[in-house]
């Protein structure tokens, strides 16, 4: 199997071939009868890893390896799967540090398999989805309408449904929830996490939904705590552009319906409009107001190192960058 050459510079994918991270490489690295070393985290054995040796069969998936272990060596191994074909979203696990669907991932010569993170473990590889389900339920994940249908079938453009339609591809496998570094921090933030937000996106990004109801749901998302790291997209087996086509449109809606929650984003816009570029001190003053007083010790340290320049902050120079930004940003974002 040949790999389609990339139209992009090679520096971006250095390492892919060295790590044998292509389907072609995986399917040719092992041959029938070779032994795969599998280590599985067992909750009944105090979370230690149990080692198994599984004979390789061509095109073997992680799920096939789990089935072989369950049938031959560990009948008490707990793992979930229903469809075996990337539809039900129940077989998500972490394999060698990355979230995968067991039914859709080729085996590797050595595998360390763990349950998904950020959810309580019920047993071995089975996690409790209750925290996710409770969060989704709190979003009232349905459509409420203020007006009756104007016609049937209802006129809806592809463009209007673009983002909601992407969110509808979700199979609820929780891979993104496990990969999210902010969710991993626990109660440090009120961030709902990628999986619940994708569920919310299915209805909140639907143009037929009532803005008052969307507003209620958006107050509970903590969405501006998303760090935009794209870890969720990296593991999504449904290839949903979670950050750019779900979380960002939801942020857009939040800024329009609940501007006080998007204060820092609006502040950045105002700073760029006023200066052309971001002056970090000006941004912090706008976002944090008097809270910034608590940061005086750090400000002094920054000043000593020449990292901030109060003269530049308080005496604005009208540069060419300012003129362009001012012209482009002079019309404010639409607020509802």
């Amino acid at each position, binding site marked *: 199997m040949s790999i389609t050459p990339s139209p992009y*510079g090679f*520096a*971006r994918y250095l390492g892919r071939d060295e790590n044998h991270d292509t389907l072609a490489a995986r399917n040719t690295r092992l041959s029938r009868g070779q032994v795969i070393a599998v280590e599985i985290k067992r909750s009944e054995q105090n979370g230690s890893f149990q080692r198994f040796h599984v004979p390789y069969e061509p095109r073997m998936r992680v799920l096939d390896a789990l089935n072989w272990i369950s049938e031959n060596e560990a009948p008490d191994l707990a793992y979930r799967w229903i469809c075996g074909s990337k539809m039900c979203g129940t077989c998500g696990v972490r394999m060698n540090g990355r979230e995968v669907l067991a039914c859709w991932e080729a085996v590797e010569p050595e595998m360390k398999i763990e349950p998904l993170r950020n959810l309580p473990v019920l047993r071995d590889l089975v996690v409790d989805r209750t925290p996710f389900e409770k969060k989704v339920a709190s979003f009232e994940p349905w459509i409420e309408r203020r007006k009756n249908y104007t016609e049937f079938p209802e006129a809806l453009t592809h463009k209007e449904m673009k983002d909601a339609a992407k969110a509808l591809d979700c199979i609820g496998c929780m891979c993104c929830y496990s990969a999210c570094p902010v969710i991993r921090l626990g109660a440090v933030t009120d961030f709902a996490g990628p999986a619940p937000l994708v569920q919310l996106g299915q209805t909140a990004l639907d143009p037929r939904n009532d803005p008052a109801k969307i507003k209620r749901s958006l107050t509970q998302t903590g969405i501006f705590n998303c760090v935009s790291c794209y870890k969720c997209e990296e593991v999504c087996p449904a290839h949903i552009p979670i*950050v750019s086509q779900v979380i960002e449109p939801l942020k857009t809606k939040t800024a329009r319906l609940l501007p006080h929650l998007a204060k820092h984003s609006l502040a950045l*816009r105002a700073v760029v409009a006023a200066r052309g570029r971001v002056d970090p001190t000006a941004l912090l003053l706008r976002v944090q107001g008097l809270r910034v007083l608590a940061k005086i010790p750090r400000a002094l340290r920054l000043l000593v190192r020449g*990292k901030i320049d109060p003269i530049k902050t308080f005496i604005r120079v009208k540069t060419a960058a300012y003129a362009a930004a001012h012209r482009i940003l002079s019309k404010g*974002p639409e607020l509802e």
Partner: protein
Amino acid sequence: MKFAYYPGCSARSTCAELNEATHLVARRLGLELVQLDSATCTGARELRAIDPAAFYALNIRILALAERERLPLMTVCNTCTLNVLDAHAAFVNDPSLAKAVNECLAPEGLHYSGRTRISHFLWVLYEDIGEARLRGLIVNPLSGMTVAAFYGCHITRPPLRYGFVDSRNNIALERLAKILGCQPIDYSGRTECCGFHTAAHDEKVAIKLTGQHIASAKMGGAKAMVTPCPLCHTVLDGFQREIEKDMSEKLDMPILHLPQLVGLALGLSPEALRIDRHMVPAHALADYAARDPNLIGKP
């Protein structure tokens, strides 16, 4: 080799040492940089979420400025790189957006036709300078320097777009570190997030996330960390005191910008590269700098 150079906001303010080092290193590498002084901010992660139309206009404007110079664009900030990549992709895929943006740029006499090649400094080293030529330019191999590469997010993800692959495969920085004579270490934080994009309104996410990464690099034996992004640098270096307080642990991990590490190996002096400008003192790294004045030469 000539590039239109977009430093971004950080390299012109809190990380001005990055801008200085980039210019010096570029000269040593034979890169001619035409700095786009009238370029604006790319809008960080905020503008794209709350005002997409303005986001596209500002970013396409930067690409149009480079196109007017008939030059490829070189960036030194991960988030700026992804912003211009995203804006370029939207421009070439959506003719109505392209038309609207060009109408917005017309009063300045600017027009974009979608031809600007976008490259980050790290990619330029491999794709435009080349490993062989770079090896030939190294006069001061940084032998003995154990370094932890911190990639950041926006030149490695989102996956399946712009040539990005699963970010955990990335080896560009480690391979470069070896070319420079350093010993790269393996640690858990290499392709993780620094949390910068929530730092303006709430620092605790950045502090908690980045603390784990620095601690892991330290445990792996790193004498320094190197990053291709000034926003990551701001958290790794600028917040390190707060991170130490949060973890109740002394870290003292010097953080270098990528051009500074390259510059040391090219024989540039630590003073010229402004490694004195970091919040966590990096003067111990001066031990690895060239001693021979003939090697250092004039920047």
